[in-house]
């Protein structure tokens, strides 16, 4: 939802030639980038550091959710009818949607659930699903891309057709349809599967392109001449040179998946209530906007900032690695 196919392609493509902007695999077979120099440059980039800090905070929030909730006093599934006014249809008592010492972020209208607790647990859901999907997509994308790019011929033909097919699919409609037809068990696992199913071709296509140009290079010829097997060449020569591309694409994929999960939850086919999800909270907030805008603004802001941090971070990393490789 946050990304159309063109966007991921633009941000990461290198093979096509008409879409520049990605880190180009470095010219020789030497170690892909000087990691130390890159790390130092990264730490000096204030914006990148700020984004990383926010991301780490959210991850910590997700990991420490049970603990945080103990401190704040309310669980994500607890109803607190005292915090809402039954005479006014369930509007939270107090300013800004009930924010105060008791409920740090206020409460949900109607059922009085603590928003802080739900945000914290929602972070869990978002990060878990997004990171799992990213890992799975990266694995599939790299494997298929390498295989198709290196071996060429019929293998490439088959993989490319599959990729074309998956990319032509109106993924969103399909995901919604499939998810709404499936039972509610293991929903998070299914979400990861479905998202990854449609997501891996975008990375695979780029990996394939770069593998194809890398395998023509002299250092691969040299390795072949000295008797290296295909798998040795793939893992020792080609893969390290893809490292910077993979890192950039991965960093840019995460916000896409965060957005996708949130979008699916927004539409009601994502995480199953009462499990909290930022997307689902946003959907629920719509009828209450006029009287309790905080209920929309808080999860909206968290979601936006998380996606923004990852996107900006990915952009910075891409620029750093691009310069390093040159």
């Amino acid at each position, binding site marked *: 939802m946050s990304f159309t196919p063109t966007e991921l392609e633009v941000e990461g493509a290198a093979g096509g030639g008409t879409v520049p902007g990605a880190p180009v695999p470095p010219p020789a077979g030497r170690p892909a980038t000087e990691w130390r120099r890159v790390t130092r440059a990264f730490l000096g980039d204030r914006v990148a550091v700020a984004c990383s800090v926010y991301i780490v905070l959210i991850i910590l929030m997700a990991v420490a959710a049970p603990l945080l909730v103990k401190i704040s006093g309310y669980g994500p599934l607890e109803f607190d009818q005292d915090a809402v006014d039954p005479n006014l249809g369930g509007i939270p008592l107090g300013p800004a949607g009930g924010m105060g010492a008791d409920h740090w972020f206020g409460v949900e209208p109607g059922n009085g659930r603590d928003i802080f607790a739900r945000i914290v647990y929602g972070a869990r859901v978002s990060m878990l699903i997004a990171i799992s999907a990213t890992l799975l997509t990266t694995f599939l994308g790299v494997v298929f891309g390498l295989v198709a790019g290196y071996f060429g011929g019929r293998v490439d033909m088959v993989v490319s057709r599959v990729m074309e097919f998956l990319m032509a*699919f109106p993924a969103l409609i399909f995901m919604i*349809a499939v998810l709404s*037809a499936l039972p509610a068990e293991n929903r998070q696992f299914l979400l990861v599967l479905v998202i990854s199913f449609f997501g891996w071709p975008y990375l695979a296509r780029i990996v394939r392109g770069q593998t194809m140009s890398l395998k023509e290079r002299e250092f691969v010829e040299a390795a072949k001449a000295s008797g290296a097997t295909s798998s040795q060449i793939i893992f020792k020569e080609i893969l390290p040179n893809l490292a910077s591309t993979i890192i950039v694409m991965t960093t840019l994929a995460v916000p896409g998946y965060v957005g996708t999960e949130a*979008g699916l939850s927004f539409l009601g086919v994502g995480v199953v209530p009462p499990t909290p999800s930022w997307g689902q909270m946003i959907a629920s907030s719509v009828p209450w906007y006029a009287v309790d805008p905080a209920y929309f603004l808080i999860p909206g802001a968290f979601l936006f900032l998380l996606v923004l941090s990852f*996107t900006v971070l990915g952009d910075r990393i891409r620029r750093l690695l691009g310069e390093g490789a040159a």
Partner: protein
Amino acid sequence: MIRFVADRLLGMLVVLFLVCLFTFVIFFVLSPDPAVQICGKNCTPEAIDQIRANLGLDQPFWTQFGTFLTGLFAGRTYGTGPNAIDCAAPCLGYSFQSSQAVTDMIAQRLPVSATVAVGAAVLWLLAGVAGGLLSAVREGRFADRFIAGLTLTGMSIPNYVLALSLQFLLVVTLGWLPFPQAVAFTDDPVRWFQNFLMPWIVLAVGMAAVYTRLTRANVIETLQENYVRTARAKGLSPGLVWRRHALRPALTPIVTIFGMDFAGLLGGALITETVFGINGIGKMAADSITKNDQPVIMGVTLLAAFLVVVGNMVVDLLYTAIDPRVRVGSSA
């Protein structure tokens, strides 16, 4: 050339066939018995059987799929006798819940989705190319960095968050725009425009961000090309260097990519239409999922895939027309 087109056409058909098949399989496996739904209340087992027979639901999978495929090209008839329903070609299915052929339902809503797509497309092309050019020309300076910040933001905000924010801000809080309400252009052009303004903006923001970055990257890269240096060495005026040697090579790929994106959008912007209550193909898809109106879901899925595949092929063809290297081939 003919070979190339034929090749691509074949590939296109294969992909579409597979999409059909795949969708059919998934729905075959997943969806509850449509006969039960159609039957409605006061159903008897005999009635369900009868409906099933009419719809051909008791046939084996491949027969059903075959019927569907032939229906695409030659139309089909549901049931027999006086209650038989005719579905003219291309028959994408029949929605019993709405008592309409899916193709007709799509045709009715296509103008609306097209309006959304066209308006957004104009906005995002203009904004994207202008922003990209400005960034490229002022590379590294404030304008470039500012626009970069805008594009990153535009790319990151989920479109429903943006849609809702705009709606809350402009309609509820500030009251600058009225609540969206279906109105024909001929009846009330102002209201019509106000209805579409927010969806246009929401869709355009994300795409404009991408196109700005794309344009910027292309222009910067083109300006470093050797042939630009040659043009300057010939003493050509900056305007000529710019127009002929920088813009043309830099912008052509963008136009072709645009074709693909636009085609994809014609299939309906599901989330945006849903949020703004626009009665287009996207909203129809979302509603049909809620109502579990399977033929509609299938039909829309196929349409969307078709548009993407066709868009892809058009782009490839455009490339052969535009890039002499592809068009003419070597004859040295």
